[in-house]
């Protein structure tokens, strides 16, 4: 009994202390503007309040910002609840678009139509003008002609991932760098002949990275993680409308190519489950595979770990397929900043918007988010940026180190991405690849537009989409792995897709552009 009462006392004491602590945390300092903001926190780049970027930009905007770092895996849940209920919503939400549910939320009045307050976002407007993005901005306008978030702006999209091969192998065998998918096939074939137990081409994170990086070269963009959300439709860049990509000849050619690789043991069959980074790295590092589609930042770690002599991975420009040399589609606008309607009720709403605009889009601050503070992280001579020795000598590389140490270059907070400035953070090799990609031209096409659905149309589309996407996935896998024959079963597949309304779905999309 005595023991129990002591425990209770201790518990009560703890509770009291915690409350006192909470009260202290709520004590506010008196500053011109103060607001709370949701921040999507990635485990590989954990948010720090003390980051130079965070401190400096707040100082410049004369704002006290309460960053709420929310784990990225659950970010959308938290945001969705805040917007749906408007209770306990923050004043500002980072890393949002008006795709999916947000489109309905916006049209139903849960999100501030920020285009109505354009005079309060002078810095954003100036950047849009500077990089000539007016037409891109028009793409994010919803059915009512308004846009509901301040997107991040990229002048030229980067080629940050692509086909990655063992350069040392190519050199050893005297093989030229691949230009087309047929070239790749020959390389894989050669490697298989030398290493019969290997699967030369492996994939990262399930087939999704493979599909979305390779399909555009064949003229389609499909699947759960295709750019754009239609999953079974693709965009015709000439006619400017959607077509039934999942049952098109283009897709047939695409899947035939990879089915051939699969059949000949060139493509890693372990692709159904999400292969995680660890397994992927092991396969590459040990020579179980020699080719993959992945991201440039991932090369370094594998190269450092491999014990194969002369091991070297290299990323190559996008390969040419039947539809040309294309890579994953990208937009010049990315996720951006959103205001829940609740914030308009604050008397200092204008100040908040102005502070946010300054913090993220002003010339001065957008530079800080990218390369830090002059004199601390870099010096500038004749317009050339020179990073501090500490950064230059970091073992993680400039980019990664600046992220971790200063919070620079995070896609959550950096809103203006200027290709030339970005390249200063990478090695020459990366810059050279990007230059080569730019020289090819039109490698990175724009993401198909999102149809302007209201929530009722969205429900209708959603009901059609799920069975279509399910069926597509099953058939895609069956064709790839040879469980179904592309020659014999294709017509059955097309008929089935039509019977569950792929044409109706396509019409619905095209009617709401």
């Amino acid at each position: 009994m005595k023991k129990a009462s002591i425990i209770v006392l201790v518990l009560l004491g703890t509770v009291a202390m915690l409350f006192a602590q909470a009260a202290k945390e709520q004590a506010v300092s008196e500053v011109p503007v103060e607001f709370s903001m949701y921040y999507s926190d990635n485990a590989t780049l954990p948010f720090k309040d003390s980051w130079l970027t965070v401190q400096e930009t707040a100082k410049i905007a004369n704002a006290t910002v309460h960053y709420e770092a929310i784990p990225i895996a659950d970010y959308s849940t938290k945001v969705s609840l805040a917007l749906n209920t408007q209770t306990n919503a923050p004043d500002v939400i980072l890393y949002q678009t008006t795709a999916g549910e947000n489109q309905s939320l916006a049209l139903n009045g849960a999100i501030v139509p920020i285009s109505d307050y354009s005079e309060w976002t002078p810095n954003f407007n100036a950047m849009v003008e500077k990089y000539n993005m007016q037409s891109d901005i028009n793409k994010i306008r919803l059915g009512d002609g308004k846009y509901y978030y301040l997107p991040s702006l990229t002048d030229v999209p980067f080629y940050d991932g692509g086909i990655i091969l063992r350069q040392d192998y190519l050199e050893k065998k005297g093989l030229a760098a691949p230009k087309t998918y047929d070239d790749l096939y020959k390389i894989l074939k050669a490697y298989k002949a030398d290493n019969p137990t290997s699967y030369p081409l492996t994939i990262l994170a399930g087939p999704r990275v493979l599909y979305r990086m390779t399909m555009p070269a064949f003229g389609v963009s499909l699947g759960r993680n295709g750019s754009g959300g239609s999953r079974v439709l693709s965009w015709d860049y000439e006619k400017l409308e959607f077509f039934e990509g999942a049952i098109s000849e283009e897709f047939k050619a695409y899947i035939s190519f990879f089915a051939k690789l699969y059949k000949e043991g060139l493509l890693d069959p372990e692709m159904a489950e999400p292969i995680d980074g660890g397994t992927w790295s092991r396969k590459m590092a040990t020579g179980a595979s020699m080719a993959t589609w992945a991201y440039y930042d991932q090369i370094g770690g594998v190269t450092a770990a491999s014990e194969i002599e002369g091991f070297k991975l290299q990323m190559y420009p996008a390969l040419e397929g039947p539809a040309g040399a294309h890579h994953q589609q990208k937009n010049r606008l990315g996720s951006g900043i959103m205001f829940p309607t609740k914030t308009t009720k604050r008397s200092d709403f204008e100040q908040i918007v102005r502070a946010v605009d300054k913090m993220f889009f002003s010339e001065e601050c957008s530079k800080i988010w990218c390369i830090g503070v002059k004199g601390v992280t870099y010096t500038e001579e004749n317009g050339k940026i020179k990073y501090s020795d500490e950064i230059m000598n970091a073992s993680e590389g400039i980019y990664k180190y600046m992220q971790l140490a200063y919070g620079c270059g995070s896609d959550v907070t950096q809103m203006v991405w200027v290709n030339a400035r970005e390249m200063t953070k990478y090695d020459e090799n990366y810059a050279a690849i990007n230059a080569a990609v730019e020289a090819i031209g039109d490698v990175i096409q724009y993401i198909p537009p999102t149809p302007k659905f209201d929530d009722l149309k969205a429900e209708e589309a959603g009901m059609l989409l799920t069975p279509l996407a399910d069926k597509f996935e099953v058939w895609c896998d069956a064709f790839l792995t040879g469980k179904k024959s592309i020659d014999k079963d294709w017509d059955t597949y097309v008929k089935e897709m039509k019977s569950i309304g792929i044409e109706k779905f396509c019409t619905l999309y095209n009617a709401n552009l």
Partner: protein
Amino acid sequence: MIFKEKRNETLQIRLRSPLQRHLFRYWQLYLMMILPFFYFILFKYIPMFGNILAFRRYRPGLGPFGTEWVGLRYFKMFFKDPAFWRAFRNTLTLSVLNIVFTFPLPIIFAIMLNELRSRNFKKIVQTISYMPRFISTVVVIAILSEILSPSSGLLNRFLVDVMHKTPTYFMNDPQYFRPIYIFSGAWQFTGWTAIIYLASITGINSELYEAAEIDGANRFQQIWNVTLPSILPTIMVMLILEVGRLLSLGFEKVLLMYTPANSEVSDIIDTLVYRTGLANQNYSYATAIGLFSGIIGLILVSSANRISRSLTGDGIY
């Protein structure tokens, strides 16, 4: 003490009606219930009004209880959907197999543990066997993929090197989906669930064993005639609860094991709801399916309870 008793008696005589007498005798028990009962009303029953969404259209941002009455629209939607019925069948099959294979394991394990002579060994086994419960599902699936990997997995290496067979891609083969699901579940939860049975065994009067021993019962007979009957009520309660949960397998594990190739057996109600309802923000649809599953669950649990009562005289209510 006798005095006290007398006073009680006189009081009871004064309270004429049976209800008054009942309350007088048991008021303390009723008082105990007030707070928990209030808890149930507040935290479990008030939010239940949210189920009205199954009959009303939910529109994001326009209030939590929907905007207009649509009747059985969402019910018709999934009743007409062949994917729903496939998911319904898959859910039932997987659940029933799961109960058949994994339900007895913790009971057998607890009994065996109880028969161990070495107390230290028993403690170690007990602690270790409960550890897998703490490995998150994602990691369990990752470990499984590793062991079952066709290229580097232990099992396939054994099959190829020792048995001279071709490697099998277990995680992607519909045929192996259910066994993998069930075995990994058994591995994770046997030790954990056994705790309840161990607690139940602890409560058995040791005189019963002594009596059985005097009657010349061997150890197996003691288990059969003393241990099992003594924990039978607990077994029945667990079984009834388990039957009531037939339709709710939880989606995380299946979602992680789901591949297009095994979808014909791995698509269950919870994953369907996740894809159709939640991923498309169709909350009304998800609510309607939830309501339907709830009704089925309630029917199952009450039938199981009735059967149990008629067979063993015990149930959960």
